[in-house]
């Protein structure tokens, strides 16, 4: 196990990068939330809402989440295959290239270089860098799996492979473009086709980044931190294959009541509802795993994160499919309800699971206890309350907004003009900003706690004892 220590440093590097971009992304998110209330905060072109919003989403999807996924995937790969990474040098290069790419991405988006396609705004040179990063990641995933010393691949590995292949397919097809210059390109698809391809990507990029690898973490770190085996292997199999089958049909549920052909919308609606089953298979698998051991919610600080995280995933995967129903889409789409939905997914599910996984990994890597369980609990409560405040507020705001858009007088005329509905949002936006501040405070506590846990402390542990621990884990 000569490579053990080396991969640990890569895992640690990705984990700390992830937390760094999380703080940056959330900071920008707070600024955006304030801009919605005080337009005077649009101080400069590069600080205007339209440009900043994409820095926020890209920073959190590609900066925070992807780095978290790389960190946890490399860690899980080594443990679950009992094999060091196939190409540790490549992984190290990936870490450097990744951080350079995210920094360049942020700068280019600040400068207004963007393709306008949601969640794939980066211009073509950066798209190529992303593809290169993905090939590097895939090489290590597949290479390590081929070299593995464990006969069966555990469920987490399926989800990692699912992530690798889905992102590869959707990212490349959606981003096909003809360059005009180094900083400008045009999509190869036009109009309805562009919309259909884009939301097929948008929805499935979310699946492959916010769902598959996070489920992989859940399936690995929950049993690891509780000592309880996952309730049902068979349920995991059903969940995996039906999820990966059903997901790719549903992109057009973002395009309900648009000029996209109605049959595509209807197929998307049907498969969206179908997706409740595989999603809840994982939710129930998680809950049943805890059966009879719910006291661990109190005694083990990590369990809270995992169980609340999967609970938010469950809420999310009821909300998502129901939003595809035309009548609900007609009321809720384009309103604050949708950002509310997305934010619960990322602030609740994704961040809770990633942060707990990182706590677990860091203590294993450093061979030390967590710096402070108290702070971890504070972190938990701050992000829980902050998230619920933000998202529940946005749901209510969205329902109000949709109702105002639809309200009519007895003579059939509209009851409110658009600005009335904007004015009605200000109180909700204010509560959301406060929730965001609490959440940011929680993440700051997390960053401090994780950094203190992962600080290199030379001399505390010999490489040999570390390697022994690695074998045992």
């Amino acid at each position: 196990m000569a490579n053990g220590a080396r991969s640990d440093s890569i895992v640690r590097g990705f984990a700390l990068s992830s937390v760094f971009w999380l703080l940056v992304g959330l900071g920008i998110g707070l600024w955006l939330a304030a801009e919605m209330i005080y337009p005077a905060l649009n101080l400069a072109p590069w600080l205007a809402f339209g440009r900043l919003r994409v820095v926020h989403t890209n920073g959190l999807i590609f900066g925070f989440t992807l780095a978290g996924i790389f960190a946890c995937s490399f860690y899980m790969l080594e443990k679950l295959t009992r094999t060091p990474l196939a190409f540790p040098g490549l992984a190290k290069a990936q870490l450097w290239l990744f951080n350079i790419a995210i920094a360049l991405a942020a700068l280019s988006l600040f400068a207004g270089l963007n393709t306008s396609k949601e969640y794939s705004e980066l211009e073509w040179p950066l798209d190529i860098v992303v593809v290169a990063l993905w090939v590097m990641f895939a090489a290590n995933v597949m290479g390590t799996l081929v070299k593995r010393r464990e006969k069966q691949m555990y469920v987490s590995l399926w989800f990692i492979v699912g992530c690798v292949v889905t992102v590869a397919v959707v990212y490349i097809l959606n981003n096909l473009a003809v360059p005009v210059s180094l900083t400008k390109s045009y999509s190869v698809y036009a109009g309805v086709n562009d919309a259909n391809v884009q939301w097929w990507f948008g929805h499935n990029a979310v699946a492959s980044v916010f769902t598959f690898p996070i489920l992989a973490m859940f399936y690995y770190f929950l049993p690891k931190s509780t000592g309880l085996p996952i309730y049902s292997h068979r349920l995991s199999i059903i969940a995996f294959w039906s999820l990966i089958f059903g997901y790719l049909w549903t992109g057009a549920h973002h395009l309900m009541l648009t000029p996209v052909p109605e049959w595509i919308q209807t197929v998307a609606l049907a498969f969206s509802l179908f997706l409740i089953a595989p999603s809840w298979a994982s939710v129930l698998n998680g809950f049943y795993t805890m059966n009879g051991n719910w006291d661990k919610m109190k005694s083990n600080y990590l369990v809270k994160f995992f169980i609340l995280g999967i609970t938010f995933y469950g809420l999310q995967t009821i909300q998502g499919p129901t939003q595809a129903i035309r009548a609900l889409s007609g009321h809720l789409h384009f309103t604050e309800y949708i950002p509310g939905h997305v934010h619960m997914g990322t602030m609740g599910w994704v961040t809770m699971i990633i942060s707990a996984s990182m706590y677990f990994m860091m203590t294993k890597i450093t061979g030390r206890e967590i710096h402070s369980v108290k702070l971890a609990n504070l972190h938990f409560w701050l992000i829980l309350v902050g998230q619920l405040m933000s998202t529940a507020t946005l749901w209510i705001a969205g329902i109000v907004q949709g109702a105002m858009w639809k309200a009519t007088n007895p003579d059939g005329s509209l009851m409110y003009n658009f600005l009335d509905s904007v004015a009605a949002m200000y109180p909700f936006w204010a509560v959301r900003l406060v929730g965001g501040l609490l959440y940011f405070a929680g993440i700051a506590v997390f960053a401090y706690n994780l950094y203190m846990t992962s600080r290199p402390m030379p001399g505390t542990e010999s490489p040999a004892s570390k390697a022994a621990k690695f074998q045992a884990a």
Partner: protein
Amino acid sequence: MRFDGLYEKPVLFAIAAVAVLSVGTLVTTFIPLFLPSTQPVSPLIRPYTAVEAEGRDIYIREGCNNCHTQTVRPMRTEVARYGDYSKPEESAWDRPFLWGSRRTGPDLARLGGKYPDAWHYRHMANPQAMFDRSNMPAYAWLAKSKLDTALTARKVTILGYGYDGAEVARQLATFRQTVTAPAYPSARVRSQVTPAALQGEITELDAMVAYLQKLGRDLKAAQATVAGSATAEAAETKNPYAGSREAEEEGEKIFKENCRSCHGEKGAGGFGPKLSTTAHKFGSSDGDLFSSVAGGRPGGMPSFLPQLGKDRVWKAVSYIRRLEREGR
């Protein structure tokens, strides 16, 4: 489990995963790319001019699509608020599409022609001056940047708009003349928001306003033309199917499905007036009858042109002529 082997072969597993995820992809994304009906192209919807295309790129650069959608849904209140709902052919020239996903501000699909240019200059420079509760950022600085047209010709070539570099140069020159001329209707407001040094140039704001004025304009113009030509035709032309038995028979079918419930069996009258007579309430020429059916009349007669189209309206008129003959 019989498929246990799959979980021991990572490459096979990855191939199986790609196969499984490709099914939905093929059906909902790949196949529609090759169906012409998914993205119809209409001669009534024109590509963007050089200036409009540049304005669109600025719209993209500033991320306007983060707050404004460009797709009106087919719902009563949306049509009332914004105008006719969006049609697939309207986006045929849009690479990329810009439908958006969030309405922090209103939908813009039907903005073109709604306000004069002066309104846009003023609003973009300071939205709160016009609507104090608006939370839109000010884009005053767009008026302080000269439009960069170095790549325009290359852009329209790539976008396949069907005109060449010479035409691009001509369009830019014409546009510049228009907005800088003292006779430009919005000249006063434009000169207020544009710095002196740039008043003779095309600014980024000029291009943005040109783009905003294009939104939905072609569809509205096309619909006005169809309605106008239908009326004009009615006033001037005779029924192209006059005397045709087949047209009368088809007209009878159309009448039974659409008209009988009000005008009664064989036009004997009901809620609506009797039609088996030569003295019609709103005039008895071919043109008058066409106008009544196509455009509707006050007092309850709805407009049938949108659902029947011109051809079938004329056939219905043919059948009404037969009812006249039979009623005599």
